[in-house]
């Protein structure tokens, strides 16, 4: 097997290829290959809104952009997607999708409940714009339709990877508050529909009965060296 050596000149490192981006209409030259967040910082922005975990999990950096010569409104997470030449972009500081107050303990898990708390789901016209707008690639409309059908388990499953960035809600002609609805559905599923984990309940009982109190006390008293030794010799369950 031959290995092709890529030589990078000093010039290329010191003078990376630059791309032009437009942030809220204003032009900036930024190095190619940066994420949108890093490009913004390069351009001099101090990120205080529209930024969170920077690992693609928190959903705080919903970004809308267009590319030159295209009508399509594209979506991205600023921490995950790299800049492209000619990008017209804005990172949304916040999406107003207020949550309805409810007490999970006193809810009745059926389709009527979701409709009562978030009546706008009845307005879904099945345009599927939400699905096209999801940076996580979720079947957003299918999840809303599953709720309308009464299949909350399916909706909970379809939305497991929702990061609540809110882009679907901003694009929805029916003004549905997706992220909060999905949150509610997963809570209902977790509390009322998924099988109860017996081992967890048993373990909690054991903890409450003080089975591990003595051992914990011992650990509290142990020296750092002892703890290190215990940690190194711990038994780990084999991964499947």
């Amino acid at each position, binding site marked *: 097997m031959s290995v092709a050596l890529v030589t990078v000149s000093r010039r290329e490192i010191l003078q990376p290829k630059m791309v032009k981006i437009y942030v809220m209409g204003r032009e900036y030259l930024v190095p190619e290959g940066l994420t949108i967040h890093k490009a913004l910082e390069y351009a001099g922005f101090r990120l205080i809104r529209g930024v969170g975990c920077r690992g693609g999990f928190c959903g705080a950096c919903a970004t809308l952009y267009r590319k030159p010569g295209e009508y399509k409104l594209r979506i991205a997470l600023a921490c995950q997607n790299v800049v492209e030449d000619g990008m017209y972009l804005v990172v949304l500081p916040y999406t107003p999708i207020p949550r309805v107050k409810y007490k999970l303990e006193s809810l009745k898990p059926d389709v009527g409940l979701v409709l009562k708390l978030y009546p706008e789901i009845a307005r879904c016209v099945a*345009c599927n714009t939400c699905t096209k707008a999801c940076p996580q690639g979720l079947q957003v409309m299918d999840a809303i339709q599953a709720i309308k059908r009464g299949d909350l388990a399916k909706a909970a499953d379809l939305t497991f990877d929702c990061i609540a960035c809110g882009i679907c809600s901003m694009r929805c002609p029916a003004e549905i508050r997706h992220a909060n609805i999905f949150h509610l559905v997963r809570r209902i599923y977790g509390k009322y529909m998924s099988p109860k984990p017996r081992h967890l309940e048993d373990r909690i009982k054991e903890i409450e009965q003080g089975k591990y109190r003595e051992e914990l006390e011992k650990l509290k008293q142990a020296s750092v060296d002892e703890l290190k030794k215990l940690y190194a010799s711990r038994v780990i369950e084999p991964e499947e």
Partner: protein
Amino acid sequence: MINVKMLYYPGCTVKRNALEYEKKTLEILSKIGIEVYELDNWYCCGAFYSLAKDDLMKHISGLRTLIKAQVQARKHGTNKLLTLCPMCYNVLKRVNHMLRENPENLDTLALFMDEEEKYTIGIEVLHLLEVLRDNIDKLKRLVVTEVKDVVVAPYYGCTVLRPREIAFDNAENPEVMDNILRALKIEVIEFPFKTECCGAYQSVFNRKIVFEKSGEILEEAAVRGANIIAVICPLCKYNLETTLLSLGKKLRIEIVYLTDLLSRATGP
């Protein structure tokens, strides 16, 4: 017996408020040799057929349902799509009709719905009443008991008979349900209020209208000696029943799904 296959679109109201209607209906259909396949992961039908001619967006829900049916039709080898709820029937059948009459609308929608396969207008939307009408001889053969002490006023509601292009019977004086009941030797009265409005969705905005409209239907049925009003629509049933409750125990009348009566006649 040769089995006929049909796709089945239940819709939200049947699944939430009319499970008994669905259960009895599917039992009867199975008895007359109709194999029913519920659409997987069905979408909302759209609930209302939008009358704005330039607002195609409102027809997407119905079209998506028809495309879903088209995909699953290949799997099950049938292009028939059965509905129980008259609202679902009305919306799906009208969307289907509109697309057939205006193929340019289908093109416009297909451009927007670029993630779906193109609809070829090959699905036939059916309502339960049509299916029962076409199998009336088989139904007759199934009768095991005479349904006694029952005088039925057949009540059709509005959306299976209007507008004309989707109606399967005379909109002013429909007789499909009358004929089905008579074939099963169930006593049926002449009921001129059979297509009067029950108040429909005014139950959400102004119940007084529902009580007024449904009240007239109930009283006319009672005056004519009926002790049962046979219905095919969950919303008609709801409106008639809540009106009946509001009247106290003044009227001795029961609101029953047609297929419940059929199941009484044809046994378990």
